[in-house]
Structures are given as C-alpha cells and as structure tokens.
C-alpha cells in the first residue's frame, strides 16, 4: 500500500516536471518553427538501425531510432568504411528530384572487422554475426527525400532497405 502510494506520488511529480519541460519546449518549438519558416537551417541527422540475418540468409534492416539536431558535420564521413572487404553496404541519399545526392560505403555490420592488439602486434578478424546494429549520419539542408541501403557481396548488389524522408 505504502509502496503504491509512493509510486503514485513519484509518478505525479515526474509527470509535472515532464509537462513543464514539454510546455517550455512547445513554446520554444513554436518560436523555432517560425524561424525555420524564414530560413531552412542545416541539420545533422543520425539514423540508427538493427540488421538481422533471416532464415533464408537475407539481411532484414529496421530503423530503430532517428536523431536530428541543428548544425553541421565537419567530418560527415565518420563511421564509413575503413576496410573494403568483398561484402559492404552502400548508402544512397536522393534529393527532392529523385537524383542521387550522395553515396557512402559502410562496413557490413554482420561481418564487422575488429582489430585487436597485443603489447607489440596487431591482427584483424572479420566477424560473422546473425544480428547487429549500425548507424549512418549525414548533413541535411532540407533537400534529402529518400534513403536506400544496398548490400554488395562478391560484386552482386541487392536493395535491402528504403526510407522516405
């Protein structure tokens, strides 16, 4: 009983704090929207994914989260491929006219390359996972309309994910 009451009180207090913050951000958002209407500001976009190998060997990709902030990536290609093995993902961004705006290559998240170390030497291994996570980040000035992931394996390409933006 006491625990239930404590939880209720805690819940109400927390809800108040959240509503207060939400109101603040709603006011802030409305002012922001007005500004954005005047001028589109550059945005930094993060897309987070999970990929799972299906029973028939296909890569099933799901968008798990998206984070957008105002600003600009100076080093936009952080996280893109360091090692081009015979299996990788090609990311294609399309503009509003459905033309290719940008392409990037990232390591196949199901075959991650790990470099490990002893005190004096190094070696690399290519993993073989059935489930993995990965992300992609890009600059957006309001001109990106579509996002695609193509899997390349032994020179064969397959479209495995599409997202309308």
């Amino acid at each position: 009983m006491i625990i239930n009451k404590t939880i209720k009180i805690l819940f109400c207090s927390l809800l108040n704090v959240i509503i207060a913050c939400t109101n603040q951000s709603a006011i802030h958002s409305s002012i922001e929207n007005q500004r954005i209407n005047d001028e589109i500001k550059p945005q930094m976009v993060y897309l987070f994914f999970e990929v799972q190998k299906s029973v028939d060997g296909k890569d099933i990709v799901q968008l798990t989260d998206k984070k957008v902030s105002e600003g600009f990536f100076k080093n936009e290609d952080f996280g893109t491929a360091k090692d081009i093995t015979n299996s990788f993902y090609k990311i294609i961004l399309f503009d509003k006219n459905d033309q290719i705006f940008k392409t990037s290559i990232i390591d196949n998240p199901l075959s991650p390359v790990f470099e490990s170390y002893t005190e004096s030497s190094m070696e690399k291994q290519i993993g073989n996972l059935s489930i993995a996570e990965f992300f992609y980040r890009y600059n957006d000035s309001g001109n990106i309309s579509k996002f695609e992931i193509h899997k390349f394996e032994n020179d064969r390409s397959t479209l495995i994910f599409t997202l309308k933006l």
Partner: protein
Amino acid sequence: MKYFYLLCFLFFNIANAQLFDLIPLLENGTKDKRINLVILGDGYTASEQSTFLADATFVLDYLMNKQPYSNYKNYFNVYALKVISLESGIKHPGTASDVTEPVIPISNPNNYLSTSYDTSGTHRCIYGSVNKVTQTLAANMPEFDIALVLGNDTEYGGCGGTYAFLSRNEQAPDVAYHELGHSFGKLADEYWFSGSGESPNKTKTLDPETIRWKNWLNTGNVGIYQFTENTAWYRPHQNCEMRYLNRQFCNVCKETLVEKIHTVKNPIDSYLPSNSTAITTNQAIDLSVNLIFPIPNTLKNEWKLNNANVATDVSNITIQPSQLRNK
C-alpha cells in the same frame, strides 16, 4: 500497478537520451571551428569520474605528443564525456578462444556502453555497443568529429571497429593513436590484411613515377616495400605505426592525416571584412586574416592583388585607393 508501468516507461524514455557532463580538456576554439575529439568513459561509476578525467587526460597527452597531432594540436578541441555507469569495470565473459580462460576473473558489471573483453573470441579485444555510443554522442555532442571509448579496467586491451575502445592500461593509448589512423585518416594497415584495398599507404602500383607516395620516395626511409604475404601489394615504410604499435607515423601517413585535418578544418579561422560587407574603393581598405598555425609554424600566406604579390606572412594589410586605381 499501472502507475508502476507508466513510471518505468517514463524512466526508460528519459534514460534513452541521457545527458552527461562534457568537460573540455583542450579547447582552442568554438566547436564549429575546431576538430572535436570526444573521449567517453565506460565502467566508471559516479564516484570514479575523477579517475576517468585523469585517464582521459593521460590519453590526450599521449596523442598530442605524437606527430602529426603534436604539430596540429591548435586545430583540435578535446572533450571528456563523463558517462556514468551503475557498476565499475569492463565485462569479462570468459569466452575468448585465443587464451585459456579465465585469464582474469569472469565479471558482468552493469556498465553504460556494454564494453566487454573477449569480443569476437579474442580476449584483448574490448568492444561495446556501437549504437549506444553513437546515441550517447548524438545526445551530448552531435557535432563530434572523432570519438573513442576508454574502459575502466587496467587489464591491457583495445579493439578498433567503428570506434576505438581501449582499457586504462598505460600501454593502451597507442591503440588510440593507431586507430585514429584508420577512423580519421582512412589509412590501411601496413601489416598484411587482405580486407583492405588501395589506400593512401597501400597500393598495387610499383612504378616510382606514378606511385601514390612518389613525392616522399627516399625521404625518411620511404620506399616501395612488398608485402611478403601477398606480393602484389606494396607499403611505403617498414616501421610505421600502421604496421607496429609504439612507433611514429611515416611521412606518407603523416601527410594523409595532415590533409585530413585541413579538410575538416580550414586553416583560415576568420577574416575581415566579411563577404557581406560593402567595400568603398575611394578609401583605404583594411584586410585581416586569422590563421591556425601548426607548431612549429609551417604555414605560409601570400596576399595578392590582381595576381601580383603585395605581402607575405602577415595577418593584416591595407590597400590604398591608388593601388586599385592603377589596376
């Protein structure tokens, strides 16, 4: 009971975008005008954050005392992100196949970024959740340019993937030095790895007239060295950091990193008058530029008017109306 579930839901949402203290360890300019390196801690509890700051400073000092970062430290900001873990340490599941486990006691601390030994079956390979690291960065410093994770355990270890993870062992910072060669400079390893192809420091070209590093041949022991494991490929040096730990980068790798530094951050920090300022040509015009100087300075500047040199290596000049009329 429904309140309990709602409370859990709210806590989950709040925890999903957790904010942590971002402490500047080296700050040479605003974030939009410098290359921002973020060091995240994992396995450090709230009471161990001073240890994390000391460890992050140790890594920073190590990096900034090795070339080319020692020469270009003015181009960087370095921040420590005080990620707080509920429990201390790096996980050790004891599942490595390259050693007889357990090398160290098996443990499963509740650390924030899931950093663990034994990744991919290799005991010394420390790695964690790539998306948790990125979500933490996206919430706390989305504009980061480079990042690495420092795990709270003294057992030597580190691993490079999307991010470099390393332990707080005093030998580990060199792992970060090598890994930045990959993640920042896109350099290949100069020990044999079949997975990487043509790179600034790896090629199939043997011709000294056309090889990628032709301008560096016969300087600082740069040459054309065949990989014994695959004789179709060549590297520029026999003793570079991209081949062995605890070395320096060879000239070819240094140049690649310096070019990357300049790609991310233009050496021109600011200038006056701004592009939007109207200039009147019937009075003297003051022009100035602020450059980010390497240490020691190797940057040259030239001021030209209609392609004729009017000044060299100065940050301010004044153009007289007569100089414009005569042109």
